[in-house]
C-alpha cells in the first residue's frame, strides 16, 4: 500500500472527526440560516413547517439593532484591547530579552501563569475583585477618594477587556520571545559595533524581525475578540450594563436557546464565522503586501 492508500489511512481518523464536527455543522448552519420555522396554531401545537427563506434571516440579523450594536462593541473592544495587549506583550518580551533584568525566568513564568487559568475561573476571580464590599481594590481606591464602579454600564466593557488582557498577554509575549530568540546573534554584534543604542536595536532590528509573530498574535486576538462569550456571560448577573445580546456570540446563543429562533441564530453564527475568516484573511493579506513592498 505504498503511497496510494497509506496517507489516507493516516488521515482518516482526523478527517472523520473534522468533517463530522466542523464541516457538517457549518453546512447545517448555512442550511438553517436560509430557513424559517413557522408554527401553526396559537402555541405551535399544530406542528412546524420549514420553509426556504432566502436571505430573510441575514437581513433580519443585520438590521437587528442589538446584533449590529454588539458587532460595533466588539470592534471598539478589539481596537483598544488588542492594541494594548500586543504593545504590552511586545514591551515585556523586549525587556525580558534585553538581559538587563534579574530573574527573567521567574517573570516569564509569572506572566504566562494566567493563560493556564480557565477564562471562567479568571472571570470569577476578577468579578470578586470588582464587587464593592468584597473587593480590596475598590476599598483601596475608595480610601484615596476614587469611587469607581467596575461593573457600571459604561465601565464593564473595559473590566472585561482587563480580564482578557490579563489572561492572554503572557501567552502572546511567549510567542514574541520565541521569535526574538530566532534573530541571529551577528545582527546584534553588528549593531553594537556601529554603536547603536538599545532603543535603536529594538526599533531597527527586533521590531521589524518579529513582524510575523506580531501578525500571528494579532490574528489570533481578532478571532478571540469575535468569540467573546464566557467573560461577559458570567458578568451578566452582576452588571446591569450587560444585556443577553451583548456580544455577537451571546446574541446567537440567546436566539437559539432563549427565543427559539434557530434560523436567526444560525445566520448570526455564519456571520460571525465569515467575519472572523475575512478579518484574518485581510490581516494576512496586508501582512504579505507590506512584506513584499519592503
Amino acid at each position, binding site marked *: 500500500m505504498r503511497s496510494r492508500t*497509506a496517507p489516507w489511512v493516516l488521515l482518516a481518523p482526523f478527517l472523520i472527526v*473534522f468533517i463530522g464536527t466542523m464541516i*457538517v455543522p457549518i453546512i447545517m448552519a448555512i442550511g438553517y440560516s436560509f430557513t424559517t420555522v413557522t408554527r401553526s396554531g396559537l402555541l405551535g401545537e399544530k406542528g412546524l413547517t420549514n420553509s426556504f427563506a432566502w436571505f430573510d434571516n441575514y437581513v433580519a440579523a443585520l438590521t437587528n439593532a442589538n446584533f449590529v450594536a454588539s458587532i460595533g462593541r466588539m470592534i471598539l473592544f478589539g481596537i483598544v484591547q488588542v492594541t494594548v495587549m500586543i504593545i504590552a506583550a511586545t514591551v515585556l518580551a523586549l525587556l525580558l530579552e534585553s538581559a538587563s533584568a534579574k530573574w527573567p525566568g521567574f517573570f516569564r513564568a509569572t506572566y504566562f501563569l494566567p493563560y493556564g*487559568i*480557565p*477564562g*471562567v475561573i479568571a472571570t470569577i476571580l476578577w468579578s470578586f475583585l470588582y464587587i464593592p464590599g468584597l473587593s480590596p481594590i475598590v476599598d483601596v481606591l475608595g480610601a484615596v477618594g476614587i469611587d469607581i464602579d467596575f461593573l457600571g454600564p459604561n465601565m464593564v466593557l473595559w473590566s472585561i477587556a482587563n480580564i482578557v488582557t490579563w489572561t492572554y498577554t503572557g501567552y502572546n509575549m511567549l*510567542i514574541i*520571545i520565541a521569535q526574538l530568540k530566532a534573530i541571529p546573534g551577528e545582527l546584534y554584534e553588528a549593531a553594537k559595533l556601529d554603536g547603536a543604542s538599545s532603543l535603536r536595536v529594538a526599533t531597527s532590528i527586533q521590531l521589524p524581525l518579529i513582524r510575523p509573530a506580531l501578525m500571528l498574535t494579532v490574528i489570533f486576538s481578532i478571532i478571540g475578540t469575535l468569540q467573546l*462569550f464566557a467573560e461577559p456571560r458570567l458578568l451578566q448577573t452582576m452588571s446591569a450594563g450587560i444585556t443577553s445580546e451583548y456580544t455577537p456570540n451571546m446574541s446567537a446563543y440567546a436566539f437559539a436557546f432563549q427565543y427559539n429562533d434557530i434560523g436567526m441564530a444560525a445566520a448570526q453564527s455564519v456571520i460571525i464565522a465569515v467575519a472572523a475568516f475575512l478579518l484574518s484573511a485581510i490581516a494576512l493579506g496586508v501582512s504579505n503586501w507590506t512584506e513584499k513592498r519592503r
Partner: protein
Amino acid sequence: MSSTDNAPAGSTTTTARRNKPLGNAAKAARGDGRLGNRNAGRKPTTTILVTAILAIVALYFLVPVYWVVINATKSTEDLFGTSGFWFGESFQLWENIKAVLSSNGGIFPRWGLNSLLYSGVGSVLATYFSVAAGYALAKYRFRGRKLVYGLVLGGVLVPGTAVALPLFFLFSSIGITNTYWAVLIPSLVSPFGLFLASIYAGAAVPDELLEAGRIDGVGELGLFHRLALPQLTPAIVTILLFQFVAIWNNYMLPLVMLADEKLYPITLGLDNWRAQTDRLPEFYQLTTTGALLSVIPLAILILVLQRFWRGGLTEGSIKG
C-alpha cells in the same frame, strides 16, 4: 538537511535552560554567546529600573491569584468583613476545602474528574489523530493533498464558538446531547495541531530515514509509528498541552451541550455555584475555595511544562 532545520528547536531548549536566574557574572563566565555579550556593559541602574518595572507588572498578574489564596482561608463573615489583601480573624482553609469537597453529595470532585476525562482522553486522541494526519500531509504526495490543507486552514480560522451552536443542532438530531460524547467528540479535533505536526514532520523526519525503513521491509504504518513518532516528540508535547488546556478551559461547548450537572466540567460547575451567590451568600466561600482548588493543578502544570511549551511555539512561529 534535517539537522539544520532542527537547530531552532534545539537552541531554544538550551536557552531555556541557561536563562535560569543566574547572576550576570555567572552567565558571562559560562561564555554564554549572545546573551553574555549583549549583557556586557549594562549599567546597574538599568538593571534595577527594568527589574522594578517587571516586578510591578508581575504584581498585576499575581493579584487575583494572591486574592484567592488569602480569601480561601476565611469564613464567609471575614470574606466581607476584613480586608481582601490580608488574612481574616479565623483561619479555616481546611474546613472550607472539606465543605467544597462534600457539598451537594461530593459534586465538586466529580466535576474535577469529568474535566480530567474530557481533557485527558480528548487531548491524547486529538494529538494522535492530528500528528498522524500532519505527518501524512508532510511526507506523502497524493491527489487531494492541497484540498485537505485548504479545508483544514479554513477550519483553523473559523471560531470554535461559532461552530458550537450548529454542532448542538447536529448532535441533538442524533440524540447525543447531554452525554459525555457531546463534549468529548468535538474535542478530538485540532486543526492547529495538524499544522504544527505537518510543519514539524516536514523538517524533522528525513525522507532517507523512511526510504531506509521501506528497504528493510517496514510497512507504511510501521514507518509512522516506529520511525517518525519518536522524531516528532517536541511537536507531540506541544500539541498535547495546547489541546489539554483548550479543552479544560472550554465553556461554551459544555454549556450548550450539557444539562445534567453530573456531566459538568469544573468550569461550568463553578459557574453554577457562583450563580447561586445572589441568593445564598455561603456560596461565595464555596466558589472562592473551589476556584483555588481548580487553579492549583493547572498552575503547577504550566510552571513545570512552560519550557517544553516554548520550544514548540518557536517551531510553529519560525516556520509559519
